[in-house]
């Protein structure tokens, strides 16, 4: 991501030779977008949505893989649709199989922690705690929390990626 920002700067510099007026408008909007993207990113961290694992992903992004972070996140959301369905089925079935719930949640927690989805991960952990003590109400409640955090993060990440793409 940073590498790209730098590349972009290079391009801007080249354009300067072509036409300074054009450049000015171009850089301003781009700078603004970059600022906005950086701001959005920071607030995702500040508000506890993401943790340093997300930075790990960002560091894996390079020229060969310019959309790596977004791709991983997309994969996460595609994958989690299956997870949620699975979870709901298991929660509906009787007798309740806490072990299975725990297993599924373990999987999902692994994915969440891999993309650095801090809040989602926290709820997952909470869910597993409830699973361990066999607290159905707690499970149900926390599952709603998981879904909510999951959806909330999705929205935030989507708009962030959008801005980040434009800023590139």
């Amino acid at each position: 991501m940073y590498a790209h920002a730098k590349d972009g700067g290079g391009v801007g510099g080249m354009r300067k030779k072509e036409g300074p007026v054009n450049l000015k408008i171009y850089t301003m909007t781009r700078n603004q977008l970059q600022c906005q993207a950086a701001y959005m990113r920071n607030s995702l961290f500040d508000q506890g949505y993401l943790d340093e694992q997300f930075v790990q992903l960002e560091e894996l992004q390079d020229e060969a893989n310019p959309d790596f972070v977004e791709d991983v996140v997309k994969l996460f959301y595609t994958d989690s649709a299956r997870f949620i369905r699975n979870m709901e089925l298991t929660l509906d079935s009787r007798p309740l199989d806490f072990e299975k719930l725990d297993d599924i949640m373990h999987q999902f927690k692994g994915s969440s922690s891999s993309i650095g989805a801090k809040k989602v991960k926290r709820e997952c952990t909470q869910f597993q705690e409830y699973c361990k003590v066999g607290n159905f109400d707690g499970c149900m409640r926390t599952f709603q929390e998981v879904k909510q955090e999951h959806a909330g993060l999705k929205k935030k990440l989507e708009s962030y990626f959008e801005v980040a793409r434009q800023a590139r």
Partner: protein
Amino acid sequence: MGCEMETDQTEDMDVVLSSMWPEDINEAGRQFNVERPGADQDMLEEVTINKEPNIVDFKRLMELTNYSDKGNWQLANLIKNWEYKQENAVRLLREELDNLSKQQQEVELKKLEILEEHRFEQDGYGGDKRPISILDENLKYLYQDAPRRRNDVVFEDEKVEIEAEFDSVVYWKQRAVHLEKLLEASIKREQVLIEKLQESIENLERQSSPVEELSQVLKRADNFLHFVLQNAPVVIGHQDKELRYRFIFNHFPSLGEQDIIGKTDVEIFSGAGVKESQDFKREVLERGLPAKREITFETELFGSKTFLIYVEPVFSKAGETIGVNYMGMEVTDQVRKREKMAKLREEMAVQKAKETELNKTIHITEESMRAKQMLATMSHEIRSPLSGVVESGVMKLEATKFRPREVVKHVLQTAAASLQKLLTLEGNVADDVPVEVIGDVLRIRQILTNLVSNAIKFTHEGKVGINLYVVQEPSTIAKQGSQKLDRDTTKELPMSESQDDQNGRDENSTCENHKLSNGAQVEEEKETNRKTEEQVVWIRCDVYDTGIGIPENAIPTLFKKYMQVGADTARKYGGTGLGLAICKQLVELMGGHLTVSSVEHHGSTFTFVLPYKVSSISDSSDDPDELSDSDHQDVLGDGNDDDLHSGVFVFQPRTLGTLFSSQSSTRIQKLTPNSYAFNKCNGLLLEDSLSPSSNITYKETRSDEDANSAAGPMETSYELEISDNLSSAEKHEKSVPNTDLVGRFHPYVHPSNSLRAKHNVDENLETCVTYQGQAQAQARTDGISSECSSSNSPEIPKGDLKPKILLVDDNKINVMVTKSMMKQLGHNIDVVHNGAEAVRAVQSNNYHLVLMDVCMPVMDGLEATRLIRSYEETGSWDDAIKAGVDIQLPSPDSQSNSQLEKTRKRIPIIAMTANALSESADECYANGMDSFVSKPITFQNMKQCLQQYLP
């Protein structure tokens, strides 16, 4: 007026603020207690009173005196006093006047008497009385209270002598004249007296006018006030109904009368507190009740000061409030001190609260840690196959070939990795301990691990170590060969210089000086030695520490289940007390014994002696198997033995497993081939680790390698070139004296022998057919190397020299991330999604590293690892097949396959754990994993892991 104050007491009279006085003091106490003027004139004579800070609006004072009850009352007192004195004077004068008029009456009465007498005498009758005496008497009576001076005057005429003859006419005439004169004088005196009286009255009136006396009293009161208050930080004032100052004492010096009188507080100065003070005064004014308040001012005029203010309302006779008296005392310092104290107290309270909280937290943390530790310990001890087996009494001992040095090293390495103390971990394997023995390595390792972790647990400084050496069979000495006996004599000194150990020592020091031939010779000798004693060797293992030791009386119960040295120990060090009991039972089941010796506060030594079969058969059988490999075997053997015999391992506290003599040299060896395969990441390390001379060699190699990898499957030429490089260079041996201890990475060493390489190529051609299809691009080369490994323990290098890595994870996101990281590290990896697939992949490919998720569907990572280890140890996939893995066995056309699979190298398997209790590191190790990385995987962790486990 009551006079309570003695003259001599005045000087030491306490100055007390009136507001501080008790409420029940009598009214007189509130007055100015001033001596009557005149009685103590000189009392304040020596005192200089600065009268400046006193500004009075006299008009207001008059008003006050006239209208306020208090002023009135005071005035009334003074007037009463004056009146009393006047009355006294008047009374005295009146008495005197009465006396005078009485005298006058008497004199006139006398005169009448005399006249009557005279008439009678004129009638020819005359008495012989002595009027003078009567007169004298009368006069004396009359003037008895008169001043003496006057007496002189009065008697002036009494001495007048009557010259005429008695009782003659002349005599009487003379007498009458004389009396008349007396009367005149008397009247004159009376007039004088009246005048004097008048004068005295006038004087009296002039002298004691009430205003003068009042002002005198007031002045004295004022003086006293000044005297008392002259140094006090007190401001006294009076303000009228509109809160305008009418009087102020001790005002701020820079303010003049015109600045204060007639103005309100807010008009005089501004800043914080001014408004408050005014409001407070107004409140008192409105409520009609005196009150005190502390007000902090922050004004430009006098900065920050705190005053304690007393305000009392002043009432008119009609009971209306007409103003306030106020008194302020500066208490800034006191307030500051008080606030400081309060702050200190508050801080102390906070501190205390924090401390309590901290203690609570510590307590809770300790408790939870203890609980967690207990749980982990229990779960490990209970779930590990060890206890289960022992408990049930069913014991199936495995007999596998293993290398004691490797076990010792690994146990110490593992312990060092999780070491949280500054301890030195050391291992010392005597030279006489065989390179390979046969026994139940898993259980032995568990015993060793248990004892070492115990030792670490109870040791706070110093070291923990393992000594391994051969001893005679505990019961029968005679059974042993002579060789053995010799060794037994030196058993207490693992590094002793006995004759038999000389060989080992030589091997140890091959590093710089000894050449191929030498090593080969040694190896030969060793082989001979082994062949002579295909027997049982008893190896004693001491696990010693410099810890707290065990009290003597606790030793007998030490090995009992659930027993620890004491309740205190359990609380302090945790553990369930199962470990030692299990260890002892295990050792005994394996035919040995476990003992302990200890000196309290100095340390303990746990010793177990076990019999092992010496694996000389397999060693010797390996040789004839590879007929064409004798040369190679020498090189390899030399390297191996060299490392295998360097049985000293030291893990210093700081370096925790990186400073590891044999390991570090091994790593260099591991890195060298690696570096020309992907010098991108390890090139730097290579430069550091190699001497310049060998560097050149490797540079050549690198270019050759590049050409070769581009050329693809032109293996033969490639190998020849490589081998030329390596075999021609003694410097290779010098700079990298030790070959791989574990032998996992032989493919990179083996090309040194061209003969063998050729042989391998032949075999490749032969066995390629048996390879089961892999659709990957590298399939061919992979297949070859895999088959090679199964056909011959030392594999040939592949065209693709990159290490092959397998990732076993069912989580797509994890896979994607890990793959990307590996790519950045320069590796392409194979991915499978569960344990069963992993087993299959390992079976059909030759991996150098496996990254294994623990929790997976179908088959978890632990089971997969167990199956892979089982295969590595036994050479058969039977367990895997039993476990339901669909293994496609290689076609049985090559007999060598199954036979040689036995010596297949151990693949490092790294667990990827989410740090859950269910994925504990202990369990990973127990199932044969080598290490673990925590999830989510970070670039740094992955890099470290690869550096440690890849050549």
